[in-house]
């Protein structure tokens, strides 16, 4: 009651106050008012936020030694990062430099909250040509100046348990069909062992597979004029193919519908509860931390169906680095980004974060297994496609990812998902996008 009364009487006053606040709300492009310090928001790349801090601190200290610029670091979990960046952009208060998921590159560019990297800025970073072209392309809409540059590269691979495969006399699969056949062979429900484990309750993972399977079918998620197109046959069949791993092939434990992040399926794999997982190349550390020896698992490209139109095996995954438009240390921030994407820093961070190099001629350092390293590099440079480089990409991730969560949940709880259901769900997702 109290609130309502005060609202009525004090409303006009508050309105005036808001307008007053609003008047000083708009910000200007970066300045150099505080050249001695930087705030850096790093994304969570290692096993934990604490781990990341330990890994990054010496690297940042070296930067401070070289330049005299002090860097205060905060590592932010993936569940919070996007909201934190939104808040920082809205308020103009926040970090100077920030890590972003590279699939958000265009969406965040559209907000205008990130510093545009024109010719002059690119020169300060050591030139456009240093970066792998496809990776740099995620930094902005086609034909525009990017607003972020690649920092860590990632790609999907199919990890399999070599012992289980040997015991069953199976060869590593080269096609989707082989993969499903092997998974069926290795599924032993009584023992609680399944052919595959999926992060089927994670919208961030699910939307990637909607994309990859669609591309394998020769379909795209956007039309030529950058509008969403989620309901073409290729997309619908691709999504259904992925859902069917649990629904008709029955090679995935229905419990996986509750796996709301990739680590849970990695753990299931490492504990011998699943023979295969599809994961980005940073799984090694988690697998080994759970007690699996490096020789007991291997990774191969995520296979496409026999009659696939494209051999796409991953989206072009990774982390980009951006400078906030509201930075008060523009030159320092540029120096810092250049440093973090330098050969030395890439080499040093590539191993603990299991990242693929984003520089041309960069050598992967994330594993001593050269075969695995070469395989991921090949996928990353030749068989990976970027998610749609459009401002509504983030909405694709949530709408399609959530729709797949729901469909997996329905399958897990005994329901049936038909092709028509998939099409309807994708239509709903498409209609909800305000492009």
């Amino acid at each position, binding site marked *: 009651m109290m609130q309502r009364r005060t609202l009525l009487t004090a409303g006009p006053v508050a309105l005036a106050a808001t307008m007053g606040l*609003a008047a000083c709300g708009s910000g200007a492009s970066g300045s150099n008012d505080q050249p001695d310090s930087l705030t850096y928001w790093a994304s969570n790349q290692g096993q934990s936020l604490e781990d990341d801090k330990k890994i990054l601190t010496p690297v940042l200290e070296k930067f401070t030694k070289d330049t005299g610029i002090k860097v205060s670091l905060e590592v932010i979990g993936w569940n919070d990062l*996007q909201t934190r960046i*939104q808040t920082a952009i809205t308020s103009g208060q926040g970090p100077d430099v920030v890590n972003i998921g590279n699939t958000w590159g265009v969406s965040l560019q559209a907000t205008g909250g990130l510093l545009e990297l024109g010719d002059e800025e690119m020169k300060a970073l050591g030139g456009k040509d240093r970066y792998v072209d496809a990776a740099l392309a995620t930094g902005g809409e086609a034909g525009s100046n990017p607003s972020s540059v690649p920092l860590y590269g990632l790609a999907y691979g199919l990890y399999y348990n070599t012992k289980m495969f040997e015991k069953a006399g199976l060869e590593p699969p080269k096609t989707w069909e082989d993969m499903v056949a092997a998974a069926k062979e290795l599924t032993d429900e009584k023992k609680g062992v399944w052919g595959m484990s999926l992060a089927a309750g994670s919208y961030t993972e699910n939307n990637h597979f909607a994309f990859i399977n669609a591309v394998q079918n020769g379909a795209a998620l956007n039309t030529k004029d950058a509008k969403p197109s989620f309901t073409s046959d290729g997309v619908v069949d691709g999504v259904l193919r992925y859902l069917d791993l649990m629904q008709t092939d029955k090679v995935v434990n229905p419990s996986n519908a509750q796996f709301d992040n990739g680590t849970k399926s990695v753990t299931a794999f490492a504990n011998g509860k699943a023979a295969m997982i599809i994961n980005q190349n940073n799984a090694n550390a988690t697998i080994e931390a759970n007690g699996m020896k490096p020789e007991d698992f291997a990774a191969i490209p995520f296979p496409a169906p026999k009659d696939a139109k494209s051999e796409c095996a991953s989206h072009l995954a990774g982390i980009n680095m951006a400078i906030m438009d509201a930075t008060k240390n523009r030159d320092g921030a540029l120096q810092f980004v250049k440093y973090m994407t330098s050969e030395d820093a890439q080499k040093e961070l590539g191993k603990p974060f299991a990242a693929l190099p984003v520089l041309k001629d960069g050598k992967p350092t994330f594993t001593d297994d050269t075969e695995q390293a070469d395989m991921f590099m090949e996928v990353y440079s030749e068989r990976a496609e970027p998610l749609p480089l459009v401002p509504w990409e983030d*909405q694709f991730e949530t709408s399609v990812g959530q729709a797949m969560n729901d469909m997996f949940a329905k399958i*897990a709880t005994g329901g049936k998902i038909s092709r028509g259901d998939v099409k309807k769900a994708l239509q709903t997702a498409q*209609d*909800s996008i305000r492009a």
Partner: protein
Amino acid sequence: MTSTTAPPSQTTENEEPQAAPPAPRRRRTWFPYLILLPALVLELLIHIVPMVTGFWMSFVELTKFFIRRWTEAPFVGLENYSIAVDINTPVGQGLLNSFLVTLAFTLLVVGISWGLGMAAAVALQRSFRGRAIFRTLFLIPYALPLYAAVITWNFMLQRDTGVVNHVLVDQLHVMDSAPFWLIGGKAFTSVVVVAIWRMWPFAFLMFMAGLQSIPEELYEASALDGASPLRQWRNVTLPMLGAVNRTLLLVMFLWVFNDFNTPYVLFGTAQPAAGDLISFHIYNASFLSWDFGTGSAMSVLLLAFLLIVTLVYLFITQRKEKRNA
């Protein structure tokens, strides 16, 4: 609405209560206003400004293209509202569905919490050995930090590793196969149970306090007249708790309808359709899709709905009160 409390600055001498003897001339002084000032400023900052900003946001197209320069977001009139209420679009349909889920959720949680709270308070009304232990025990859910409590439920309700399935399936054999509690249709049951678990101690606490004020003689007198315990409850306890009851129901309704924390902590990012409560729904509409205008329009609609319910409720209860007086 007519009983609006006028702000102090409007109280001129003419409007002062029409006390019969002419009041001695009071000197105007700024001191009372000065000590009110901090409270007013805080009230403005914490309640009013955000509310008004939210109201303003519901009329502009505040998408990611404008969050950087949000003052320049274009005015779109009622467009956000028409998107939110058009049930032929996925957005409107989602909101309607969420509204209905929330309504069912609220009625169940408030109803059952009320019943449990009342039963427990009446059971503990008379003094007996160990009463303090029960009181403490019953209040624990209310005293626990929300996040810790709800995340524990999340662990307990896991399909493969949760204690709920372990007890139901492995030990009691009530169910043949382990059900999912946090996805699919049963997610609704889960969120209702968790919310009741958190809410009923509050009802219990309020009733317990209310019962203290009922004179023991009333029970003695009615017992002499031969009233059964049920009759005593209906004709003594319930009417004497009238005021507590009216406030309690309203407060619980508003809290439960607005509950954000329980679904947010219980379900995390894998939010099931059956547990799509409205505050959480609006949060997702705003933050996951970066469409703060539509999100605000939904919030304003929610506020309007709750206001109407509150007004109707107060109107009815006050009229009843007057009739009884």
